[in-house]
């Protein structure tokens, strides 16, 4: 289940983070405001001890109240300023950072929708969900907060150090030198932490994946009573996440506690030498107080550095994970110069088409040649695993052919825009997928402009009149968040969806399998009217479906081995007879036995298994 998890290198993460700058661009102004506000806040905070020092050295030392009021008012003004700018920073942040996060998220979703089916076959939904949620949150936290304070804190460190150097340079130098161990420590930390951070994020995705499967597959888990197994799998993943998180905690604990000590040690040294300097008369008492207060002020920037760098690392690996997705080019996409398909006659032609699933070593389809004339219906017949479904998926370009080409009215379907191709070609899949939306929207899907008449016609053809009896008719929400429908009902909706608006080319993958005999008869009758004028490729498992077609193509091991009418093939091709023979009833068992003699072996072994019970 693990996705490719490259060991992250520190440089790479920050490169990904740097690439996100395009998303920051519109908010440069706001970020500047936030940065300035943060700086002012910190400076105001910094100035208060100076004012305190001035009070002590001035009015207090002289024993006169005259200057006290002005300085007190200054301290209060600074306090108000600090709070006001703190407010400004947060307020601005609430706009631009959330906007930026949402923009990235929307782009991520748009990109994922563009990525082909082959990508989604492999990508675990849980991994994608955590990218769209927690990874983005991490990035936003760093860009909206961490990076600003990283800059502010470094600035603060520099400003305070300069102030200290001017107050009393020997001590100031000591403070300046304290940056060295901090930097060394940081570099070491970064190397360790980036690996741990990526690992935790990947594991979070794995946990989400198990959760997702456990929720979607709940029926099967319940039907087989496999709660314990799926629970065990979840605990394993959650346990791995816990261990990885603890590893992260250990790295952080070391780093953070050392960073905590640094300013303390600094303060001690300053106190010792400062007091000596005061005693020696090199430094005034008030200056020492100010000096100490300023060094205390440095504690927070140094301590916070640990935290900021940690989220910096985390957002770098999170950005890496995002770009793992963004950098995946859609394998199926509009080629440069592709044109709109426009109106077509509907002549569909497979020319020496071969296909293998990405990552597979074996061809599913080999040298398939087949022409379907405009208005003609061809049934595709073949044993389980012969490649029928793969062939149907090639027409709307859910996958691209590996070799050969598919043409529509003579134009290679890769030379036209995806959108115009999919406008012309409509598909009913073997698994009818419904979305959490109204019946109407489930029928129209991409065709938002479908008219009521078209919808009524589609419902009529697919015998899906039951939708009118749903509590809110066509407005009833179905799908995961709505009313559950039976398999037969879902299949009829999937069919209605395909025939809606009478597309020029129809691809139907075993469209009637879940229907009862009566409904099947009615649907066939209606479908026949549609197919009379539509180019269609129909995967058929049963003679009744085959009879919808003008011709039949027999697929075996990825090759088309015979094409002809049902009767022709029935008469002349034994393999076809074997696959589609209607006489699967007991009286034909003798024929069966002859046809699949090898099956007896299978049955023998099965009896053994049965007996072992």
């Amino acid at each position: 289940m693990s996705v490719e998890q490259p060991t992250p290198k520190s440089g790479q993460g920050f490169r990904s983070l740097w690439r996100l700058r395009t998303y920051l661009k519109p908010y440069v102004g706001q970020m500047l405001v936030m940065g300035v506000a943060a700086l002012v806040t910190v400076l105001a905070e910094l100035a208060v001890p100076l004012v305190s020092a001035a009070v002590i050295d001035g009015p207090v030392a002289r024993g006169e109240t005259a200057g006290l009021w002005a300085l007190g008012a200054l301290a209060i003004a600074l306090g108000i300023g600090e709070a006001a700018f703190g407010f400004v920073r947060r307020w601005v942040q609430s706009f631009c950072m959330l906007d930026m996060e949402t923009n990235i998220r929307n782009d991520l979703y748009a990109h994922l929708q563009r990525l082909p089916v082959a990508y989604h076959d492999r990508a675990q939904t849980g991994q994608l969900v955590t990218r769209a949620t927690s990874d983005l949150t991490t990035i936003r936290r760093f860009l909206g907060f961490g990076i600003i304070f990283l800059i502010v804190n470094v600035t603060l460190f520099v400003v305070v150090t300069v102030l200290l150097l001017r107050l009393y340079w020997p001590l100031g130098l000591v403070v300046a030198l304290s940056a060295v161990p901090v930097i060394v420590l940081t570099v070491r930390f970064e190397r360790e932490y980036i690996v741990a951070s990526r690992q935790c994020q990947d594991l979070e995705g794995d946990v989400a994946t198990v959760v997702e499967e456990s929720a979607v597959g709940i029926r099967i888990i319940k039907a087989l009573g496999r709660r314990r197994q799926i629970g065990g799998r979840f605990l394993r993943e959650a346990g791995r996440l816990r261990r990885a998180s603890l590893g992260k905690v250990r790295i952080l604990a070391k780093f953070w506690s050392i960073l905590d000590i640094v300013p303390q040690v600094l303060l001690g040294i300053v106190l010792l030498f400062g007091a000596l300097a005061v005693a020696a008369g090199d430094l005034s008492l008030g200056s020492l107080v100010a000096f100490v207060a300023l060094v205390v002020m440095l504690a927070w920037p140094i301590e916070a550095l640990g935290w900021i760098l940690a989220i910096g690392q985390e957002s770098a690996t999170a950005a890496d994970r995002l770009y793992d997705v963004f950098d995946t080019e859609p394998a199926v996409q509009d080629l440069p110069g592709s044109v709109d398909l426009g109106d077509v006659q509907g002549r569909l032609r497979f020319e020496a088409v071969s296909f293998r699933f990405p990552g597979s070593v074996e061809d599913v389809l080999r040298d398939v040649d087949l022409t379907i004339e405009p208005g003609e219906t061809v049934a595709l017949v073949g044993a389980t695993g012969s490649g029928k479904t793969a062939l149907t998926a090639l027409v709307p370009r859910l996958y691209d052919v590996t070799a050969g080409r598919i043409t529509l009215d003579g134009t290679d379907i890769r030379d036209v825009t995806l959108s115009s191709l999919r406008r012309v070609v409509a598909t009913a899949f073997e698994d009818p997928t419904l979305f959490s939306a109204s019946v109407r929207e489930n029928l129209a899907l991409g065709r938002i402009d479908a008219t009521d008449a078209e919808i009524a016609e589609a419902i009529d053809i697919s015998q899906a009149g039951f939708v009118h009896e749903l509590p809110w008719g066509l407005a009833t929400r179905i799908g995961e968040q709505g009313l559950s429908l039976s398999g037969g009902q879902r299949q009829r909706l999937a069919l209605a969806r395909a025939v809606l608006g009478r597309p020029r080319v129809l691809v139907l993958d075993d469209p009637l399998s879940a229907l009862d005999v009566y409904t099947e008869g009615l649907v066939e009758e209606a479908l026949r009217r549609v197919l009379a004028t539509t180019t269609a490729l129909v995967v058929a498992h049963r003679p009744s479906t085959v009879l919808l077609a003008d011709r039949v193509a027999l697929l075996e091991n990825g090759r088309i081995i015979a094409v002809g009418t049902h009767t022709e093939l029935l008469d002349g091709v034994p393999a076809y007879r074997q696959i589609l023979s209607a006489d699967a009833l007991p009286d034909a068992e003798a024929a069966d036995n002859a046809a699949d003699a090898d099956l007896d072996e299978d049955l023998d072994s099965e009896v053994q298994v049965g007996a072992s019970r």
Partner: protein
Amino acid sequence: MTTAVMPPDPSPEPKAAESEWRGVASEDAAEISVAGGVFLRERSRRLLGSLARPHKKALWTVAGAVLLQNAAGMAGPYLISVGIDDGIPQILAGDGSSTLIIVFALFMLSAVAQGLLRWFFFTRSGYVGQAMLFQLRRRVFNHLQELSLSFHEKYTSGRVISRLTSDVETIGELLDESLDELVMAVLSIVSIGVILLVLDAPLALVVLLSFPLLLVMFRWFGKNSTLSYRRTRETVALLIVQFAESLGGIRAVQAFRREPRNQEIFEEVAEDYKAANRRAWQLIAVFEPGIMLLGNLTIGAVLLYGGYRTIIGEIEVGVLVAFLLYLRRFFAPMEDLSVLYNSFQSATAALEKLSGVLEETATVPAPAQPRRLDSPQGTVHFDAVRFGYRSGAEDAVVLPRLDLTIPAGQTVALVGATGAGKSTLARLLARFYDPHEGSVTVDGVDVRDLTDADLRRAVVMVTQESFLFSGTVAENIALGKPDATRAEIEDAARAIGAHGFISALPEEFDTDVRKRGGRLSAGQRQLVSFARAFLADPAVLILDEATSSLDVPSERLVQRALRTILTDRTALIIAHRLSTVEIADRVLVMSDGQIVEDGAPADLIGGSGAFADLHQAWLHSLV
């Protein structure tokens, strides 16, 4: 939410993207009555408490470490004031620097002690936090798995994901920072308060004046942020629901050019999530600087008043310096506390959701006193069963009153039009739901009295939708019997005729089927499901349209295998293809939730009832 102890809530229709359709609504809304809100918060606190309880000792140790560290930290300003007030005069008086050296040594000691304690705190509290999160995940996950299908049908997988990822992470954020800040803050505030009083009571009283205002601000933020964080949790769940659902059905999305509309819906829920977040952020934008402002004003007041008192000679300079330093340490924790309170509010909203899930009771509960069923024979009995999917809704009754006995070992075919109640009957037997009235028994034992393990050993159902988990073919088959050997798995596949296609896969039984079994066709997936059920070897096998996607040869193979498989077990077969019926000992024809015909296949076919018609129609469809 179905049966949970929920406060009365108005549960308005979800707005935004969903406004155009109606039907099964989503979760509870952000606006909850005052009493309901109190209830929710108490419930989530209970959950947090129960998670923390096992770590009581560790938590006290950790709190102790924070305390010590804080004490060490507290020494700092005091040592500095001693150094200035005593150390310097000593040197100036020519009495040597002993005081200063001691102060320095103590200062260094406290710095190192602080570092060590801090390290101890981080590792220890990190451990406790991770253990609590692990426990929370485990409890919520296990509980979700226990909950009935009726819950999952409403709750949706996207919400389940959001609860176990986003919500749990929110709580993790609280645990990451909470303890030290809380202990430190409370401790700093109390201890510094005392120190301030000791140092100079009149100045300390000035500080105390700010307290009522602080209280008002905390209450204001608490009330408002609760609402906005609830909204955040709900909107992120909706976001994940849309995300997961639409990417799960990507084939249909792309084939039907649904992308733009999806994008529209997604951006709308993302906008809602953003708005909820923004509201929370803006509350913080007012709250945190507000606390800061109050602190700063107090410091200003102390500077004025303290400076004045120093000038008139009521206090020493050293006292004023210490006072000002301590005061910083007094209000900084106050600001920390406001940040922490914010995390707490956010986590509480997540805890509300999670405790809500944990409070859901299974509509199909595990028996309090289970009865054993060690070697099930497979006699099935429906006794005056009444059932509908929406309990209480009179018009939604699917089975008004059903009586049925299936002797052990009998193969029963169930036929009838869509909506006749065939699948419902099957689901009741598999105990996906419980009947409203009457009972379903296996070997005389009510299925409600069986443990899940015993029930699933006795009854297994194979449905039309054959869900495969990501993993290998072998792993998916082994789901039927987790301890199955490889030979058993392969034999099972062979027995139902799946061996052929599996052998043709690149890595045979070890081929990764990909997400949802996307690598295989629907027919192949059904064969794998069959092999699974065969391996599970139950006394009662239910096949609900389990062969619909098979091609004729595969189906024939399965039929023939079934003949052997079913000889010594009870079977309930639902199929539109009447070929299945041929292997049945008995046919039941259902109509409107009632059994209208019951007899041997040959008798019914020869008769003049509904089944005879159906059989004719089917023969006709075979052409």
